[in-house]
């Protein structure tokens, strides 16, 4: 996954944020590419009126910049993305797996797969974002 260019990770994050099933969850890492800033969503509620709790004190909330994206290189953020996919599909047992050189998201019930838009970006995160985009 580390072979994926940084710009592709940013694009993947933007696509995820645009999904109807998207929301910020505690534990997610946020990056702001314009100024190389990073935050960690620390507490519930993860987001209120465009602000996120980034820890430090009860008052340590920050207005979420419009250009902030999730960092899917981060394992905690990836775990949250999987939770969002399961929620969006209402399938708590859905999950990604690697087979024949490709990441796929597989449901044992419906046997569905989601095409990864960018074949070069063949990552677990890309498969999960594709699944989130395809959610009903």
């Amino acid at each position: 996954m580390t072979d994926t260019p940084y710009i592709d990770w940013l694009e993947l994050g933007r696509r995820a944020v645009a999904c109807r099933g998207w929301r910020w969850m505690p534990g997610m890492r946020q990056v702001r590419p314009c100024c190389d800033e990073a935050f960690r969503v620390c507490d519930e509620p993860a987001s209120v009126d465009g602000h996120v709790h980034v820890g430090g004190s009860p008052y340590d909330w920050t207005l979420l910049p419009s250009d902030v994206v999730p960092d899917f290189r981060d394992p905690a953020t990836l775990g949250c993305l999987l939770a969002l996919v399961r929620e969006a599909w209402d399938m708590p047992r859905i999950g990604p797996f690697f087979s024949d050189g490709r990441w796929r998201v597989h449901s044992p019930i419906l046997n569905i797969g989601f095409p990864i838009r960018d074949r070069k970006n063949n990552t677990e995160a890309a498969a999960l974002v594709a699944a989130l985009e395809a959610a009903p």
Partner: protein
Amino acid sequence: MTDQEWIELGQRAVACRAWRWLPGMLAYRPGGIWEWRRHSVAKWCDSLGVRRSIPDVAVPDLGDPATVGCLLALVREAWGAPHKSVRHDDDHAVSGRPWVVWCPPRWVRADTEAAALVAALESAP
């Protein structure tokens, strides 16, 4: 799973040789009310502020999606297998242990996703 079973599962995870706290993980003290989120490599945060450490008895909250994502990362690291994943096998749902992880030369099975990952971490070489 009962609260006690979640605590014991967390204790098994922490006892693994390959265990470490990763940024994003959620920890709690068994029987307590406080939770701490690993903010960065050297920092934890809770609703009151930032701290450098948490109690030694703290265990990971393996019901937290971010923490489970980190646990999967530890399993992959311990096995040197970046493509390893945990799957639900409906064919074994009746056995009560449908969550599986391939840990050569066998499948590790458990009743929950988190328990399968902990078992995979325990059996890492």
